[in-house]
């Protein structure tokens, strides 16, 4: 029924998850992983609908990545696939609110936070990819590349500053460190490939 997916979970992810559990407990980890699963399912469902084949799944420190072998998606199709993740989260938040009547605020919040974070216009995130696809669609790949580099650089710098500020103000929350390093890396190297979801 399922094609033989190539699933890889990096050691860094396992370490970060253990750290997160030690710092915050099981419950938040389950909430975050649940929201992440909804997100990836959104991508996966639209990719399947468009006929693209999902070949692999990587779980790393910086998040989950679906690998697809189809490079022939149209701009519109790829945009739909990219936006399907955040849309899935938004849908889940709505459903949980309506069905739960306020019983699962944490799950709703996690879905919303994941949705908003992934919509940031920084490239490996969905927002950056969507920005590239939109501007490339409208004004050509060169303009798209320029737009995403500028927006990504500025947003990543702002995000890094925000995370650093939160860490300073809370006097810890060190498990945010990978996110801080990632946003610095994303901001400093806006040209790296965006071939993932």
């Amino acid at each position, binding site marked *: 029924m399922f094609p033989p997916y190539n699933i890889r979970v990096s050691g860094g992810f396992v370490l970060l998850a253990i750290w997160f559990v030690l*710092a*915050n*407990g099981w*419950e*938040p980890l389950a*909430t*975050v992983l649940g929201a992440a699963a909804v997100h990836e399912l959104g991508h996966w469902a639209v990719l399947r609908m468009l006929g693209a084949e999902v070949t692999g799944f990587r779980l790393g420190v910086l998040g989950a990545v679906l690998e697809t072998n189809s490079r022939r998606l149209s701009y519109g199709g790829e945009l739909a696939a990219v936006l399907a993740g955040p849309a899935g989260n938004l849908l889940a*938040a709505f459903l*949980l*609110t309506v069905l739960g009547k*306020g019983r*699962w*605020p*944490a*799950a*709703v*919040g*996690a879905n*919303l*936070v994941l949705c908003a974070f992934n919509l940031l216009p920084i490239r490996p995130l969905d927002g950056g990819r969507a920005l590239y696809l939109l501007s490339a669609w409208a004004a050509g790949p060169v303009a798209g590349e320029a737009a995403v580099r500028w927006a990504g650089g500025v947003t990543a710098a702002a995000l890094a500053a925000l995370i650093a500020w*939160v860490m300073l*103000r*809370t*006097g*810890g*929350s*060190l*498990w945010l460190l990978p996110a801080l390093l990632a946003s610095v890396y994303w901001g400093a190297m806006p040209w790296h490939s965006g071939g993932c979801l």
Partner: protein
Amino acid sequence: MTSRQAGRRIAAGTRRRSRSVRNGTRKGEPLAAKDLRLMLRLVACGGIFVALVAAKLLLPAKMAAFNETLSAAMEQNMDVQAVFSAVGRAFSGEEGGGMGEVYQAVFHPQEGAFQAGAAGTAEAPVKMTTQKATLRDSAALDLLRGFRAEPGAPSGPPEAPGPEGQPASSLAYVLYSQENLPEGVSMEQALLGFDYSAPVAGTLSSGFGYREHPTEGEERFHYGVDLAADTGAEVRCFADGTVTAVGDSSSYGRYCVVAHEGGYSTLYAHCSRVTASSGTAVKRGQKIAEVGETGMATGPHLHFELQREGTYLNPVYYVSAL
């Protein structure tokens, strides 16, 4: 490993020259790059390990201090679950906390946890309060440091409500309106809705509110009242409730926390010993501890705090019958 690798690369090179061009590069190159990356990783990890061991051997004191700083930072965490919950509630338009509630959850995890516990989930109230007490230690440390440097009282029993304490606390009422109070503090006199009695028979030696730091000349907030009494004097529980935390900290000394109905809780610090154990139900007036000067204290006294759902209230209204 390197020499074998090099050999393979040379072999790949010759094969490329003699036979298929593509096969040679494809098989040889990625493997070499992968091995090189692994080697670099190993060298980096080994380097860090050796450097840390060297630092520990050469500068043990600095390393211990660094260790302490690091573990303190690692223990301070924002309450992720509370943050998510705040976002979720804001989304569903519940009790319009919005951004304010999210901000509260990020920067004041102890109060967030407290409210979550009071809201009814109550999975591990004991654990939560313990955590709350430890998290609050840094704030307590500051205020207790403020006490120690009190001029005119380098040691011995705490001074009576005399020249130092009295003007400062009345100043607090004049100068600091509700907006100027630190976060999580209320000057209101709440109606408790249950019977209570003073925890110790002693004199008020330091009130609730801002007081001027005598050496650094800055304002510090005192989150409770100090009741001077002899070492070993009985500390009686303020009201019926459950002991939620018994602990020993560098600032509070031996302390315990009791949760009462209506979301109220009280803290008893600097005890010579705590006789009640965590998790037990206690009655008003029951002995739970003995007065001491453990932690940062200049003389035997009870530091008494009153909270309502994470907000510090002025306990003086309820102990002033003395």
